[in-house]
Protein backbone atom coordinates (compact mmCIF):
# COMPACT_ATOMS: atom_id res chain seq x y z
CA UNK A 1 0.00 0.00 0.00
CA UNK A 2 1.30 3.42 -0.92
CA UNK A 3 -0.28 4.94 2.20
CA UNK A 4 2.05 2.93 4.40
CA UNK A 5 5.02 4.31 2.47
CA UNK A 6 3.64 7.79 3.02
CA UNK A 7 3.18 7.00 6.72
CA UNK A 8 6.83 6.05 6.98
CA UNK A 9 7.84 9.26 5.21
CA UNK A 10 5.71 11.34 7.54
CA UNK A 11 7.04 9.40 10.52
CA UNK A 12 10.60 10.29 9.49
CA UNK A 13 9.65 13.95 9.27
CA UNK A 14 8.01 13.89 12.72
CA UNK A 15 10.97 12.13 14.26
CA UNK A 16 13.25 14.75 12.77
CA UNK A 17 11.18 17.48 14.42
CA UNK A 18 11.35 15.60 17.74
CA UNK A 19 15.12 15.38 17.32
CA UNK A 20 15.30 19.12 16.81
CA UNK A 21 13.23 19.48 20.00
CA UNK A 22 16.02 17.63 21.82
CA UNK A 23 15.14 13.96 21.45
CA UNK A 24 17.94 11.45 21.03
CA UNK A 25 16.98 8.77 18.50
CA UNK A 26 16.55 5.29 19.98
CA UNK A 27 15.70 1.94 18.44
CA UNK A 28 14.11 -1.00 20.20
CA UNK A 29 13.81 -4.66 19.18
CA UNK A 30 10.56 -5.59 17.47
CA UNK A 31 10.29 -8.78 19.52
CA UNK A 32 9.88 -8.14 23.24
CA UNK A 33 10.05 -10.75 26.00
CA UNK A 34 6.43 -11.51 26.86
CA UNK A 35 7.06 -11.88 30.60
CA UNK A 36 7.70 -8.19 31.25
CA UNK A 37 4.60 -7.08 29.37
CA UNK A 38 2.43 -9.76 31.01
CA UNK A 39 3.64 -8.82 34.48
CA UNK A 40 2.85 -5.19 33.73
CA UNK A 41 -0.49 -5.43 31.97
CA UNK A 42 -1.73 -8.85 33.01
CA UNK A 43 -3.43 -11.33 30.76
CA UNK A 44 -5.42 -8.58 29.00
CA UNK A 45 -2.34 -7.74 26.90
CA UNK A 46 -2.77 -11.05 25.08
CA UNK A 47 -5.97 -9.68 23.59
CA UNK A 48 -4.01 -6.71 22.22
CA UNK A 49 -0.60 -8.08 21.30
CA UNK A 50 0.61 -10.86 19.03
CA UNK A 51 2.37 -13.60 20.92
CA UNK A 52 4.89 -15.92 19.37
CA UNK A 53 7.44 -18.27 20.88
CA UNK A 54 10.46 -20.45 20.35
CA UNK A 55 11.95 -23.22 22.43
CA UNK A 56 14.97 -21.11 23.38
CA UNK A 57 13.54 -17.77 24.50
CA UNK A 58 9.97 -18.78 25.28
CA UNK A 59 7.12 -16.38 24.66
CA UNK A 60 7.84 -13.17 22.78
CA UNK A 61 5.49 -10.38 21.78
CA UNK A 62 5.54 -8.28 18.68
CA UNK A 63 6.14 -4.84 20.20
CA UNK A 64 2.70 -3.41 21.13
CA UNK A 65 4.29 -0.08 22.08
CA UNK A 66 7.68 1.60 22.52
CA UNK A 67 7.28 3.01 25.99
CA UNK A 68 8.19 -0.14 27.91
CA UNK A 69 11.43 -0.94 26.00
CA UNK A 70 12.46 2.74 25.95
CA UNK A 71 11.98 2.97 29.73
CA UNK A 72 13.97 -0.25 30.16
CA UNK A 73 16.81 1.10 28.03
CA UNK A 74 16.89 4.35 29.96
CA UNK A 75 16.76 2.65 33.36
CA UNK A 76 19.63 0.38 32.33
CA UNK A 77 21.99 3.31 32.18
CA UNK A 78 20.67 6.38 30.37
CA UNK A 79 22.14 9.81 31.12
CA UNK A 80 20.04 12.31 33.07
CA UNK A 81 18.07 14.23 32.12
CA UNK A 82 17.22 12.51 28.84
CA UNK A 83 14.92 13.11 25.90
CA UNK A 84 14.27 10.33 23.39
CA UNK A 85 12.49 9.99 20.09
CA UNK A 86 11.70 6.94 17.98
CA UNK A 87 9.65 5.92 14.98
CA UNK A 88 8.58 2.47 13.98
CA UNK A 89 5.86 -0.05 13.66
CA UNK A 90 3.79 -1.41 16.50
CA UNK A 91 1.46 -4.37 16.31
CA UNK A 92 -1.98 -4.69 17.85
CA UNK A 93 -4.03 -7.81 17.61
CA UNK A 94 -7.55 -7.06 16.31
CA UNK A 95 -10.22 -9.67 16.87
CA UNK A 96 -13.43 -7.72 16.58
CA UNK A 97 -13.09 -4.76 14.27
CA UNK A 98 -11.67 -5.44 10.79
CA UNK A 99 -11.37 -1.67 10.14
CA UNK A 100 -8.78 -1.20 12.87
CA UNK A 101 -5.16 -1.50 11.78
CA UNK A 102 -3.19 -4.33 13.36
CA UNK A 103 0.14 -2.83 12.31
CA UNK A 104 0.91 0.89 12.21
CA UNK A 105 3.67 3.40 12.65
CA UNK A 106 4.12 5.33 15.90
CA UNK A 107 6.41 8.28 16.47
CA UNK A 108 7.20 9.07 20.07
CA UNK A 109 8.89 11.59 22.32
CA UNK A 110 9.74 10.78 25.93
CA UNK A 111 11.23 13.03 28.63
CA UNK A 112 13.06 11.68 31.69
CA UNK A 113 13.73 14.69 33.87
CA UNK A 114 13.75 15.26 37.63
CA UNK A 115 13.81 19.05 37.43
CA UNK A 116 10.29 20.34 36.89
CA UNK A 117 7.38 17.99 36.24
CA UNK A 118 4.93 20.73 35.23
CA UNK A 119 7.43 22.11 32.75
CA UNK A 120 8.10 18.65 31.26
CA UNK A 121 4.34 17.94 30.96
CA UNK A 122 3.84 21.24 29.16
CA UNK A 123 6.85 20.65 26.90
CA UNK A 124 5.45 17.31 25.69
CA UNK A 125 1.88 18.54 25.25
CA UNK A 126 2.94 21.69 23.41
CA UNK A 127 5.27 19.73 21.13
CA UNK A 128 2.48 17.34 20.16
CA UNK A 129 -0.04 20.10 19.63
CA UNK A 130 2.43 21.86 17.34
CA UNK A 131 2.76 18.76 15.13
CA UNK A 132 -1.03 18.51 14.84
CA UNK A 133 -1.89 22.17 14.23
CA UNK A 134 -4.38 22.78 11.47
CA UNK A 135 -6.13 19.44 11.91
CA UNK A 136 -9.71 19.35 13.25
CA UNK A 137 -8.80 17.74 16.56
CA UNK A 138 -10.13 18.01 20.07
CA UNK A 139 -7.61 17.68 22.88
CA UNK A 140 -8.67 15.83 26.01
CA UNK A 141 -6.65 16.03 29.21
CA UNK A 142 -6.88 14.47 32.63
CA UNK A 143 -4.80 13.61 35.65
CA UNK A 144 -4.78 10.11 37.14
CA UNK A 145 -2.66 11.44 40.02
CA UNK A 146 -5.64 13.40 41.36
CA UNK A 147 -7.80 10.27 41.48
CA UNK A 148 -5.02 8.33 43.18
CA UNK A 149 -4.60 11.09 45.77
CA UNK A 150 -8.36 11.08 46.37
CA UNK A 151 -8.36 7.32 47.03
CA UNK A 152 -5.28 7.55 49.25
CA UNK A 153 -6.93 10.28 51.31
CA UNK A 154 -10.16 8.42 52.12
CA UNK A 155 -10.68 7.93 55.86
CA UNK A 156 -10.84 4.17 55.63
CA UNK A 157 -8.62 1.12 56.03
CA UNK A 158 -5.43 0.59 54.04
CA UNK A 159 -6.84 -2.65 52.70
CA UNK A 160 -9.79 -0.83 51.16
CA UNK A 161 -7.60 1.93 49.78
CA UNK A 162 -5.21 -0.46 48.11
CA UNK A 163 -8.12 -2.46 46.66
CA UNK A 164 -9.59 0.72 45.17
CA UNK A 165 -6.23 1.95 43.95
CA UNK A 166 -5.58 -1.33 42.18
CA UNK A 167 -8.79 -0.91 40.20
CA UNK A 168 -8.67 2.78 39.24
CA UNK A 169 -8.22 1.54 35.65
CA UNK A 170 -11.18 -0.86 35.81
CA UNK A 171 -14.12 1.48 36.41
CA UNK A 172 -16.73 -1.27 36.89
CA UNK A 173 -14.80 -3.17 39.54
CA UNK A 174 -13.86 0.17 41.17
CA UNK A 175 -17.54 1.11 41.36
CA UNK A 176 -18.48 -2.31 42.82
CA UNK A 177 -15.77 -2.03 45.47
CA UNK A 178 -16.81 1.51 46.33
CA UNK A 179 -20.42 0.38 46.79
CA UNK A 180 -19.24 -2.46 49.02
CA UNK A 181 -16.99 -0.23 51.17
CA UNK A 182 -19.71 2.40 51.47
CA UNK A 183 -22.18 -0.21 52.71
CA UNK A 184 -24.48 0.53 49.78
CA UNK A 185 -24.82 -3.11 48.76
CA UNK A 186 -25.61 -5.96 51.04
CA UNK A 187 -22.93 -8.48 51.84
CA UNK A 188 -23.38 -11.71 49.82
CA UNK A 189 -24.87 -14.60 51.81
CA UNK A 190 -21.70 -16.62 51.29
CA UNK A 191 -19.62 -13.97 53.05
CA UNK A 192 -22.09 -13.64 55.92
CA UNK A 193 -21.86 -17.38 56.47
CA UNK A 194 -18.08 -17.24 56.30
CA UNK A 195 -17.87 -14.46 58.89
CA UNK A 196 -20.30 -16.30 61.15
CA UNK A 197 -18.03 -19.34 60.97
CA UNK A 198 -20.72 -21.38 59.24
CA UNK A 199 -18.53 -23.00 56.62
CA UNK A 200 -17.43 -26.55 56.08
CA UNK A 201 -13.66 -26.68 56.41
CA UNK A 202 -13.36 -30.43 55.96
CA UNK A 203 -12.16 -30.28 52.33
CA UNK A 204 -8.59 -31.50 51.87
CA UNK A 205 -5.95 -28.80 51.44
CA UNK A 206 -4.81 -28.83 47.81
CA UNK A 207 -2.98 -26.37 45.63
CA UNK A 208 -0.28 -23.80 46.15
CA UNK A 209 -2.48 -21.37 48.05
CA UNK A 210 -2.06 -22.60 51.62
CA UNK A 211 -4.69 -22.82 54.36
CA UNK A 212 -2.79 -20.12 56.27
CA UNK A 213 -3.54 -17.76 53.36
CA UNK A 214 -7.23 -18.67 53.50
CA UNK A 215 -7.23 -18.00 57.24
CA UNK A 216 -5.41 -14.70 56.80
CA UNK A 217 -8.04 -13.54 54.33
CA UNK A 218 -10.88 -14.58 56.66
CA UNK A 219 -9.24 -12.54 59.42
CA UNK A 220 -8.93 -9.59 57.02
CA UNK A 221 -12.60 -9.91 56.02
CA UNK A 222 -13.63 -9.98 59.67
CA UNK A 223 -11.62 -6.83 60.34
CA UNK A 224 -13.18 -5.25 57.25
CA UNK A 225 -16.70 -6.09 58.47
CA UNK A 226 -15.89 -4.20 61.68
CA UNK A 227 -14.62 -1.11 59.84
CA UNK A 228 -17.04 1.79 59.38
CA UNK A 229 -18.38 2.43 55.88
CA UNK A 230 -16.72 5.21 53.90
CA UNK A 231 -18.34 8.46 55.02
CA UNK A 232 -21.01 10.01 52.82
CA UNK A 233 -19.23 13.33 52.40
CA UNK A 234 -16.07 11.63 51.16
CA UNK A 235 -18.01 9.31 48.91
CA UNK A 236 -19.97 12.18 47.37
CA UNK A 237 -16.77 14.15 46.95
CA UNK A 238 -15.05 11.24 45.21
CA UNK A 239 -18.02 10.69 42.89
CA UNK A 240 -18.29 14.39 42.11
CA UNK A 241 -14.56 14.43 41.42
CA UNK A 242 -14.75 11.50 38.99
CA UNK A 243 -17.54 13.29 37.10
CA UNK A 244 -15.66 16.60 36.64
CA UNK A 245 -15.63 17.51 32.97
CA UNK A 246 -14.94 21.15 32.18
CA UNK A 247 -12.47 23.48 30.57
CA UNK A 248 -9.30 23.52 32.65
CA UNK A 249 -9.76 26.71 34.72
CA UNK A 250 -13.33 25.76 35.69
CA UNK A 251 -12.32 22.16 36.37
CA UNK A 252 -9.61 23.39 38.71
CA UNK A 253 -12.09 25.62 40.49
CA UNK A 254 -14.58 22.75 40.92
CA UNK A 255 -11.89 20.44 42.22
CA UNK A 256 -10.73 23.07 44.73
CA UNK A 257 -14.29 23.00 46.08
CA UNK A 258 -14.23 19.21 46.23
CA UNK A 259 -10.94 19.36 48.13
CA UNK A 260 -12.85 20.78 51.13
CA UNK A 261 -14.05 17.20 51.69
CA UNK A 262 -11.00 15.50 50.19
CA UNK A 263 -8.04 17.63 51.28
CA UNK A 264 -5.64 14.87 50.20
CA UNK A 265 -5.99 16.00 46.58
CA UNK A 266 -4.62 19.50 47.29
CA UNK A 267 -0.98 18.71 46.43
CA UNK A 268 -2.11 17.10 43.16
CA UNK A 269 -4.25 20.17 42.41
CA UNK A 270 -1.25 22.39 43.05
CA UNK A 271 0.68 20.32 40.53
CA UNK A 272 -2.17 20.74 38.05
CA UNK A 273 -2.15 24.48 38.66
CA UNK A 274 1.60 24.60 38.01
CA UNK A 275 1.01 22.61 34.79
CA UNK A 276 -1.67 25.07 33.70
CA UNK A 277 0.76 27.93 34.23
CA UNK A 278 3.50 26.10 32.31
CA UNK A 279 1.10 25.37 29.43
CA UNK A 280 -0.03 29.00 29.35
CA UNK A 281 3.58 30.15 29.28
CA UNK A 282 4.06 28.02 26.16
CA UNK A 283 1.17 29.74 24.47
CA UNK A 284 -1.41 26.96 24.87
CA UNK A 285 -4.99 28.24 25.01
CA UNK A 286 -5.63 26.74 28.43
CA UNK A 287 -9.00 28.47 28.85
CA UNK A 288 -10.56 26.31 26.14
CA UNK A 289 -8.66 23.10 26.92
CA UNK A 290 -10.90 20.28 28.16
CA UNK A 291 -10.21 18.47 31.40
CA UNK A 292 -11.96 15.21 32.38
CA UNK A 293 -11.10 13.83 35.79
CA UNK A 294 -11.83 10.26 34.65
CA UNK A 295 -9.91 10.57 31.37
CA UNK A 296 -7.38 7.77 30.95
CA UNK A 297 -9.10 5.36 33.33
CA UNK A 298 -9.89 2.84 30.61
CA UNK A 299 -6.56 2.96 28.81
CA UNK A 300 -3.38 1.06 29.49
CA UNK A 301 -2.63 1.26 33.16
CA UNK A 302 0.77 2.85 33.42
CA UNK A 303 -0.12 6.53 33.41
CA UNK A 304 -0.23 7.96 36.91
CA UNK A 305 -0.33 11.72 36.42
CA UNK A 306 -1.04 14.04 33.49
CA UNK A 307 -2.77 12.27 30.55
CA UNK A 308 -3.76 13.63 27.16
CA UNK A 309 -5.16 12.58 23.82
CA UNK A 310 -6.01 14.23 20.50
CA UNK A 311 -9.25 13.07 18.83
CA UNK A 312 -10.67 13.66 15.36
CA UNK A 313 -13.92 15.46 16.09
CA UNK A 314 -15.67 14.50 12.90
CA UNK A 315 -14.38 10.93 12.93
CA UNK A 316 -15.37 9.40 16.27
CA UNK A 317 -14.70 5.98 14.72
CA UNK A 318 -10.96 6.67 14.54
CA UNK A 319 -8.60 5.91 17.40
CA UNK A 320 -6.88 8.97 18.94
CA UNK A 321 -4.30 10.54 16.63
CA UNK A 322 -1.94 11.11 19.55
CA UNK A 323 -1.88 10.10 23.21
CA UNK A 324 0.50 10.49 26.10
CA UNK A 325 1.01 11.04 29.75
CA UNK A 326 3.16 10.80 32.84
CA UNK A 327 4.33 7.39 34.05
CA UNK A 328 6.61 7.89 37.04
CA UNK A 329 5.55 4.57 38.61
CA UNK A 330 6.44 2.61 35.48
CA UNK A 331 10.08 3.70 35.76
CA UNK A 332 10.04 2.37 39.33
CA UNK A 333 8.53 -0.96 38.24
CA UNK A 334 11.02 -1.44 35.43
CA UNK A 335 13.90 0.36 37.13
CA UNK A 336 15.21 -2.44 39.36
CA UNK A 337 15.57 -0.10 42.29
CA UNK A 338 15.87 3.13 40.32
CA UNK A 339 13.17 5.60 39.39
CA UNK A 340 12.81 8.87 37.56
CA UNK A 341 9.85 11.11 36.71
CA UNK A 342 8.92 10.54 33.08
CA UNK A 343 6.38 11.85 30.58
CA UNK A 344 5.90 11.23 26.88
CA UNK A 345 3.55 10.48 24.07
CA UNK A 346 3.06 8.93 20.66
CA UNK A 347 1.57 10.14 17.44
CA UNK A 348 0.14 8.15 14.50
CA UNK A 349 1.22 9.53 11.13
CA UNK A 350 -1.24 7.28 9.24
CA UNK A 351 -4.16 9.00 10.98
CA UNK A 352 -2.70 12.46 10.28
CA UNK A 353 -2.58 11.52 6.58
CA UNK A 354 -6.17 10.23 6.68
CA UNK A 355 -7.40 13.49 8.18
CA UNK A 356 -5.32 15.65 5.82
CA UNK A 357 -6.77 13.77 2.86
CA UNK A 358 -10.29 14.45 4.14
CA UNK A 359 -9.53 18.13 4.69
CA UNK A 360 -8.30 18.47 1.11
CA UNK A 361 -11.12 16.45 -0.42
Amino acid at each position, binding site marked *: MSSSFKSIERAALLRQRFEIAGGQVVETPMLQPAGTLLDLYGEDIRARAYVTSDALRGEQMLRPDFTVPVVQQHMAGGAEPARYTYAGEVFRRQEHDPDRANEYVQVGYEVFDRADAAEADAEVFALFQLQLRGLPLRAATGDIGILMAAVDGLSTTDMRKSALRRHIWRPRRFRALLDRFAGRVEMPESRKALLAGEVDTS*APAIGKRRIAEVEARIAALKADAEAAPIADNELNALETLMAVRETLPFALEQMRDIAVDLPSILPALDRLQARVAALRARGIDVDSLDFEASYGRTSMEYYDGFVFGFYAERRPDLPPVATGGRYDALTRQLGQGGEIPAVGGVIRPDLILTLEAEENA
Partner: protein
Amino acid sequence: MTLKLGVPSKGRLMEKTFDWFAKRGLQLSRTGSEREYAGAVEGIDGVELVLLSAGEIPRELAAGNIHLGVTGTDLVHEKLARWEQEVEEVAEMGFGFADLILAVPTCWVDVETLEDLDAVAAAFRAEHGHRLRVATKYHRLVREFLTDAGVADYQLVDSQGATEGTVKNETAEMVADITSTGETLRANHLKILGDGLVLKSQATLWRSRVAPYSDAEKATLKELRDKIVS
Protein backbone atom coordinates in the same frame (compact mmCIF):
# COMPACT_ATOMS: atom_id res chain seq x y z
CA MET B 1 -22.85 -29.04 -6.72
CA THR B 2 -23.54 -30.36 -3.24
CA LEU B 3 -24.19 -28.85 0.15
CA LYS B 4 -21.44 -29.90 2.53
CA LEU B 5 -22.46 -30.94 6.04
CA GLY B 6 -19.67 -31.28 8.58
CA VAL B 7 -20.27 -33.74 11.40
CA PRO B 8 -18.03 -34.94 14.27
CA SER B 9 -16.15 -37.98 13.05
CA LYS B 10 -16.32 -40.21 16.10
CA GLY B 11 -17.77 -41.03 19.48
CA ARG B 12 -21.04 -40.20 21.17
CA LEU B 13 -21.27 -36.80 19.54
CA MET B 14 -21.29 -38.48 16.10
CA GLU B 15 -23.84 -41.10 17.16
CA LYS B 16 -26.18 -38.53 18.72
CA THR B 17 -25.85 -36.34 15.65
CA PHE B 18 -26.80 -39.28 13.42
CA ASP B 19 -29.80 -40.02 15.70
CA TRP B 20 -30.89 -36.37 15.64
CA PHE B 21 -30.90 -36.27 11.83
CA ALA B 22 -32.54 -39.73 11.61
CA LYS B 23 -35.50 -38.45 13.67
CA ARG B 24 -35.89 -35.77 11.00
CA GLY B 25 -35.88 -38.23 8.11
CA LEU B 26 -32.23 -37.96 7.14
CA GLN B 27 -30.02 -41.03 7.38
CA LEU B 28 -26.37 -40.16 7.88
CA SER B 29 -23.88 -43.00 7.87
CA ARG B 30 -20.22 -43.73 7.65
CA THR B 31 -19.23 -45.71 4.62
CA GLY B 32 -16.27 -47.85 3.79
CA SER B 33 -14.10 -49.36 6.48
CA GLU B 34 -14.24 -48.40 10.14
CA ARG B 35 -11.06 -46.34 9.72
CA GLU B 36 -12.08 -44.45 6.63
CA TYR B 37 -13.61 -41.03 7.15
CA ALA B 38 -16.23 -41.11 4.41
CA GLY B 39 -19.96 -40.80 4.79
CA ALA B 40 -23.29 -40.85 2.99
CA VAL B 41 -26.61 -39.04 3.35
CA GLU B 42 -29.97 -40.58 2.46
CA GLY B 43 -33.37 -38.92 2.55
CA ILE B 44 -32.30 -35.83 0.64
CA ASP B 45 -30.41 -35.24 -2.58
CA GLY B 46 -27.45 -32.93 -2.97
CA VAL B 47 -26.01 -33.14 0.58
CA GLU B 48 -22.51 -34.45 1.13
CA LEU B 49 -21.35 -35.67 4.54
CA VAL B 50 -17.91 -34.47 5.68
CA LEU B 51 -16.54 -36.16 8.79
CA LEU B 52 -14.30 -33.88 10.83
CA SER B 53 -12.95 -33.45 14.33
CA ALA B 54 -15.52 -31.39 16.31
CA GLY B 55 -12.75 -28.92 17.11
CA GLU B 56 -12.07 -28.24 13.43
CA ILE B 57 -15.68 -27.64 12.43
CA PRO B 58 -15.77 -23.97 13.54
CA ARG B 59 -12.70 -23.19 11.45
CA GLU B 60 -14.07 -25.00 8.39
CA LEU B 61 -17.37 -23.11 8.67
CA ALA B 62 -15.53 -19.78 8.98
CA ALA B 63 -13.37 -20.65 5.98
CA GLY B 64 -16.47 -21.52 3.95
CA ASN B 65 -15.18 -25.04 3.27
CA ILE B 66 -18.42 -26.52 4.58
CA HIS B 67 -21.92 -25.03 4.41
CA LEU B 68 -23.32 -26.64 7.55
CA GLY B 69 -21.65 -28.08 10.60
CA VAL B 70 -22.45 -29.66 13.96
CA THR B 71 -20.34 -28.62 16.94
CA GLY B 72 -20.63 -27.16 20.44
CA THR B 73 -21.42 -23.51 21.19
CA ASP B 74 -18.26 -23.42 23.32
CA LEU B 75 -15.99 -24.30 20.40
CA VAL B 76 -17.61 -21.80 18.04
CA HIS B 77 -17.40 -18.97 20.58
CA GLU B 78 -13.82 -19.83 21.53
CA LYS B 79 -12.41 -20.28 18.05
CA LEU B 80 -14.30 -17.64 16.08
CA ALA B 81 -13.82 -14.11 17.46
CA ARG B 82 -16.56 -12.70 15.24
CA TRP B 83 -18.78 -15.76 15.23
CA GLU B 84 -22.03 -13.79 14.70
CA GLN B 85 -20.66 -12.57 11.39
CA GLU B 86 -19.26 -15.91 10.32
CA VAL B 87 -21.93 -18.44 11.26
CA GLU B 88 -25.66 -18.62 11.86
CA GLU B 89 -27.27 -20.88 14.42
CA VAL B 90 -29.73 -23.15 12.56
CA ALA B 91 -30.85 -25.38 15.43
CA GLU B 92 -29.88 -26.23 18.99
CA MET B 93 -29.78 -30.01 19.05
CA GLY B 94 -30.59 -30.78 22.68
CA PHE B 95 -27.56 -32.90 23.57
CA GLY B 96 -23.91 -32.41 24.43
CA PHE B 97 -24.92 -30.03 27.22
CA ALA B 98 -21.92 -28.57 29.00
CA ASP B 99 -21.13 -25.42 30.97
CA LEU B 100 -17.84 -23.59 30.82
CA ILE B 101 -17.26 -22.67 34.46
CA LEU B 102 -14.61 -21.32 36.81
CA ALA B 103 -13.71 -23.64 39.69
CA VAL B 104 -11.44 -23.18 42.70
CA PRO B 105 -10.28 -25.62 45.40
CA THR B 106 -13.11 -26.47 47.84
CA CYS B 107 -10.71 -25.66 50.67
CA TRP B 108 -10.82 -21.99 49.62
CA VAL B 109 -13.78 -21.41 51.93
CA ASP B 110 -13.26 -17.66 51.55
CA VAL B 111 -13.90 -17.67 47.78
CA GLU B 112 -17.44 -17.89 46.40
CA THR B 113 -17.64 -14.96 43.96
CA LEU B 114 -15.56 -13.20 41.31
CA GLU B 115 -15.06 -10.35 43.77
CA ASP B 116 -13.46 -12.83 46.20
CA LEU B 117 -11.37 -14.29 43.40
CA ASP B 118 -10.03 -10.89 42.41
CA ALA B 119 -9.05 -10.04 45.99
CA VAL B 120 -7.40 -13.44 46.41
CA ALA B 121 -5.50 -13.05 43.12
CA ALA B 122 -3.93 -9.81 44.39
CA ALA B 123 -2.94 -11.38 47.71
CA PHE B 124 -1.65 -14.52 46.00
CA ARG B 125 0.60 -12.53 43.69
CA ALA B 126 2.01 -10.55 46.61
CA GLU B 127 2.64 -13.76 48.55
CA HIS B 128 4.01 -16.02 45.82
CA GLY B 129 5.55 -13.57 43.35
CA HIS B 130 3.54 -14.76 40.37
CA ARG B 131 0.03 -14.28 39.11
CA LEU B 132 -2.71 -16.74 40.07
CA ARG B 133 -2.76 -19.45 37.39
CA VAL B 134 -5.97 -20.56 35.72
CA ALA B 135 -5.66 -23.81 33.75
CA THR B 136 -7.87 -23.94 30.65
CA LYS B 137 -8.07 -24.62 26.97
CA TYR B 138 -10.66 -21.87 26.47
CA HIS B 139 -8.23 -18.95 26.52
CA ARG B 140 -10.22 -16.33 24.69
CA LEU B 141 -13.59 -16.96 26.38
CA VAL B 142 -12.09 -17.05 29.85
CA ARG B 143 -9.93 -13.98 29.30
CA GLU B 144 -12.84 -11.96 27.97
CA PHE B 145 -15.05 -13.09 30.85
CA LEU B 146 -12.47 -12.16 33.50
CA THR B 147 -11.63 -8.85 31.82
CA ASP B 148 -15.30 -7.98 31.74
CA ALA B 149 -15.65 -8.90 35.41
CA GLY B 150 -12.66 -6.72 36.30
CA VAL B 151 -10.55 -9.56 37.69
CA ALA B 152 -6.80 -8.83 37.59
CA ASP B 153 -3.53 -10.52 38.58
CA TYR B 154 -4.34 -13.89 37.07
CA GLN B 155 -2.64 -15.77 34.24
CA LEU B 156 -3.96 -18.43 31.91
CA VAL B 157 -1.97 -21.62 31.57
CA ASP B 158 -2.77 -23.96 28.75
CA SER B 159 -4.27 -27.33 29.63
CA GLN B 160 -5.59 -29.55 26.87
CA GLY B 161 -6.68 -32.41 29.12
CA ALA B 162 -6.94 -33.65 32.73
CA THR B 163 -7.38 -29.98 33.63
CA GLU B 164 -8.92 -30.76 37.02
CA GLY B 165 -5.66 -32.39 38.11
CA THR B 166 -3.56 -29.26 37.63
CA VAL B 167 -4.47 -27.80 41.03
CA LYS B 168 -3.33 -30.82 43.00
CA ASN B 169 -0.17 -30.94 40.91
CA GLU B 170 0.35 -27.24 41.66
CA THR B 171 0.74 -26.27 38.03
CA ALA B 172 -2.34 -24.05 38.42
CA GLU B 173 -4.33 -22.58 41.31
CA MET B 174 -7.74 -23.00 39.68
CA VAL B 175 -9.40 -24.17 36.46
CA ALA B 176 -11.81 -22.99 33.80
CA ASP B 177 -13.30 -26.03 32.13
CA ILE B 178 -16.35 -27.67 30.64
CA THR B 179 -18.52 -29.66 32.99
CA SER B 180 -21.89 -31.37 32.62
CA THR B 181 -22.53 -32.90 36.04
CA GLY B 182 -19.70 -31.43 38.11
CA GLU B 183 -18.68 -34.90 39.28
CA THR B 184 -15.08 -34.73 38.06
CA LEU B 185 -14.73 -31.37 39.77
CA ARG B 186 -15.99 -32.73 43.08
CA ALA B 187 -13.75 -35.78 42.83
CA ASN B 188 -10.81 -33.41 42.45
CA HIS B 189 -11.89 -31.26 45.43
CA LEU B 190 -12.91 -28.29 43.30
CA LYS B 191 -16.04 -26.13 43.54
CA ILE B 192 -17.72 -23.85 41.03
CA LEU B 193 -17.77 -20.09 41.70
CA GLY B 194 -21.32 -18.79 42.25
CA ASP B 195 -21.01 -16.21 39.46
CA GLY B 196 -18.41 -18.13 37.48
CA LEU B 197 -20.54 -19.43 34.61
CA VAL B 198 -18.70 -18.34 31.46
CA LEU B 199 -20.90 -20.03 28.86
CA LYS B 200 -23.69 -22.60 28.52
CA SER B 201 -22.98 -24.91 25.61
CA GLN B 202 -24.76 -27.62 23.64
CA ALA B 203 -24.38 -29.35 20.29
CA THR B 204 -25.67 -26.97 17.63
CA LEU B 205 -26.18 -27.05 13.87
CA TRP B 206 -24.50 -24.01 12.33
CA ARG B 207 -24.65 -22.53 8.85
CA SER B 208 -21.63 -20.79 7.35
CA ARG B 209 -22.35 -17.20 6.31
CA VAL B 210 -19.09 -17.20 4.38
CA ALA B 211 -19.44 -20.25 2.09
CA PRO B 212 -20.65 -19.64 -1.48
CA TYR B 213 -24.13 -20.97 -2.27
CA SER B 214 -25.23 -21.83 -5.83
CA ASP B 215 -28.95 -21.76 -6.69
CA ALA B 216 -29.09 -25.53 -6.42
CA GLU B 217 -27.38 -25.43 -3.04
CA LYS B 218 -29.77 -22.76 -1.83
CA ALA B 219 -32.70 -24.98 -2.82
CA THR B 220 -31.17 -27.95 -1.02
CA LEU B 221 -30.57 -25.80 2.05
CA LYS B 222 -34.23 -24.75 2.08
CA GLU B 223 -35.37 -28.34 1.76
CA LEU B 224 -33.06 -29.36 4.58
CA ARG B 225 -34.24 -26.53 6.84
CA ASP B 226 -37.87 -27.51 6.23
CA LYS B 227 -37.14 -31.09 7.29
CA ILE B 228 -35.21 -29.99 10.38
CA VAL B 229 -37.59 -27.35 11.66
CA SER B 230 -40.78 -29.36 11.17
